[in-house]
């Protein structure tokens, strides 16, 4: 396995983007270009599979672009974490592209942005220095702004603009953090900076503390935890359906993985206390907002924020199993959340309604899609043979003694309640004579593939956790937890019961009117920015006591 294959992880999506752009220019080849670019995307798998043997045995593949070594050159590093991220990006992007091909209303321009976003995400995962990370973050962001506003709807344009403003302010702080590090250390590669910071890490000097905090705040906007999350509900809800699936599935995970990498390499352990509480509060408050929503996609978007809070809290608990738990839940969330967004998107398309109380039940019209939706909904609730159960069990192990654990516990049955509320759109109702537009073959295939992956990731949850541990922390010994012990399975029962009780509580009319009033509270752009600066100040203060 030569290291020369590593840049092809970025070159292949760029070639696919070039093919899509040719389809945009020469309109006669529009459809051919879309199919060609999706087909060429499988080239990424052709790079990842041969690398599997080397990466799994602990090797780290480094590639210097143009044979320029550090400190002036760009280095691409393919280690275990980068391999996992690249595999996740490939699976989700490929399935979303297949879904978009099946929908037939997305032209070559859509695929162009999709492929450019993939190339940017690969760049973020693979890069070895901070400035390339900044550039690749911005590539992903620009493609995201264009994709969210792609349909030209009023809400999509406004959501994209709000995301642009907040995300640009965040990335300015990221660049400011890079500046502070460059001023003190004189180099921008992650390895050189982490060597220079040494063992006391970034807490030693005020300027490096401010630098790490700025970097985290900048990425925090992209990852959407409180108080930087306000752009996410509108952006994910009013985007086109495959775009929502991609954004909620992969884009927020990539920035989270980058932040985890920076925190671990730059000695950010002193921030873990603050991050634990931020994660737990994000999880709880976002799921309460999700309970109040009547728009189906906004409910899913709020539940995305809540699950990101879960992942962050699990990581910040600092146990030996934390990193594996966080990565495992991130991967599983990518799988089931994109599945949910795609199936709910099909429902919104079929009924023409976004309000879940007004949608007619589609259970009998689209039986395959309903089954896939229920697999996704049961995964996020944490039902035993599915993947949500495996990663939530790992998170439970990671957070066992932590004071923030009760908040996550309340979150899990609030999640069950909110998804019982959402599942009314796919209940078996009367077969409607108007259901003429069946979803296409490719659409159904992509949805079935995602649900099959959810099922497999759940059944093989233990071995997958072992594999992740070998990839992420090869030095630390790890016993594969027995996920299917009866005592662990019984843990799910109180969650299910309390969740169902919670659902009946919120279905009462008094709760519904309270929810309607809560739902109409949407912070405007000025409040959003004030919250951002408040969050930044919190982070800065955190390291000083």
């Amino acid at each position, binding site marked *: 396995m030569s290291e020369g294959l590593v840049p092809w992880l970025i070159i292949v999506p760029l070639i696919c983007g070039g093919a899509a752009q040719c389809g945009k220019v020469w309109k006669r080849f529009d459809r051919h270009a879309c199919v060609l670019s999706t087909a060429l995307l499988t080239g990424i798998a052709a790079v990842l599979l041969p690398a599997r043997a080397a990466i799994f045995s602990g090797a780290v593949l480094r590639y210097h672009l143009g044979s320029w070594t550090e400190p002036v050159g760009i280095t691409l590093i393919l280690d275990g974490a980068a391999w996992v991220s690249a595999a996740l990006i490939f699976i989700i992007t490929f399935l979303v592209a297949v879904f978009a091909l099946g929908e037939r209303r997305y032209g070559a321009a859509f695929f162009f942005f999709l492929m450019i976003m993939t190339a940017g995400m690969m760049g973020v995962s693979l890069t070895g220095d901070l400035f390339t990370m*900044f550039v690749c973050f*911005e590539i992903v962001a620009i493609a995201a702004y264009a994709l969210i*506003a792609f349909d030209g709807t009023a*809400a999509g344009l*406004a959501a994209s603009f*709000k995301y642009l403003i907040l995300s640009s302010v965040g990335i*300015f702080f990221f660049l*400011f953090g890079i*500046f502070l590090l*460059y001023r003190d250390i004189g180099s921008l590669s992650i390895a050189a900076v982490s060597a220079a910071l040494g063992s006391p890490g970034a807490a030693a000097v005020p300027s490096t503390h401010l630098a790490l905090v700025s970097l985290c705040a900048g990425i925090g906007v992209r990852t959407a935890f409180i108080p930087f999350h306000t752009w996410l509900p509108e952006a994910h809800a009013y985007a086109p359906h495959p775009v929502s699936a991609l954004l909620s599935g992969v884009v927020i995970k990539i920035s989270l993985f980058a932040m985890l990498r920076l925190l671990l390499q730059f000695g950010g352990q002193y921030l873990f206390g603050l991050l634990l509480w931020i994660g737990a509060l994000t999880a709880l408050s976002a799921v309460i907002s999700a309970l109040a929503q009547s728009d189906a996609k906004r409910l899913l978007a709020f539940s995305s924020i809540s699950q990101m809070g879960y992942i962050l809290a699990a990581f910040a608990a600092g146990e030996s199993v934390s990193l594996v738990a966080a990565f495992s839940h991130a991967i599983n969330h990518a799988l089931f959340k994109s599945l949910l967004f795609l199936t709910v998107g099909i429902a919104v398309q079929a009924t023409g309604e976004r309000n879940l109380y007004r949608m007619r039940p589609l259970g009998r019209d689209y039986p395959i899609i309903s089954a896939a939706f229920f697999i996704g909904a049961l995964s996020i609730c944490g039902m035993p043979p599915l993947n949500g159960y495996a990663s939530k069990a790992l998170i439970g192990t990671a957070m066992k003694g932590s004071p923030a654990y009760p908040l996550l516990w309340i979150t899990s049955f609030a999640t069950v309640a909110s998804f019982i509320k959402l599942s009314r759109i796919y209940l078996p109702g009367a077969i409607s004579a108007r259901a003429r537009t069946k979803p296409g073959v490719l659409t159904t295939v992509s949805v079935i593939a995602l649900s099959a992956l959810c099922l497999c990731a759940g059944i093989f949850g233990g071995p997958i956790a072992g594999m992740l541990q070998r990839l992420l922390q090869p030095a630390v010994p790890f016993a594969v937890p027995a996920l299917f012990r009866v005592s662990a399975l019984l843990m799910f029962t109180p969650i299910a019961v309390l969740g169902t009780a919670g659902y009946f509580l919120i279905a009462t009319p008094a709760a519904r009117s309270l929810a309607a009033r809560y739902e109409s509270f949407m912070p405007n752009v000025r409040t959003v920015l004030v919250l951002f600066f408040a969050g930044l100040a919190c982070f800065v203060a955190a390291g000083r006591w």
Partner: protein
Amino acid sequence: MAWYLIGALFLTGLWGVAAKHNIVKKAMALSIANNALILFFIYNGSRGAQTAPIEGSAKVMADPLPQALMLTAIVVGICILALALALIYRLYLRFGTLDIRTIERKAWKTHE
């Protein structure tokens, strides 16, 4: 002294993004803040230097690495600004106003 001026420029940009209601002014303020960050890097690289980093000069050269990186940062800033202006144009065609408060109120209403 120059640090404080560049810092004031950055804070002006951030204040403009937060406080102004006109979306064109918000985009302009984003651009100002971006330029201030670029100036931070370039000024830092030029401290103690006497000439531009061209090969063959005998004097002390400015640090060429931040200059090369800032070219990329300028390109990124231009792309963001171009996209923001395109969005602003479409928003204006759709809503008829440039005030972010009116736009947000009308936008979320259509999906209630």
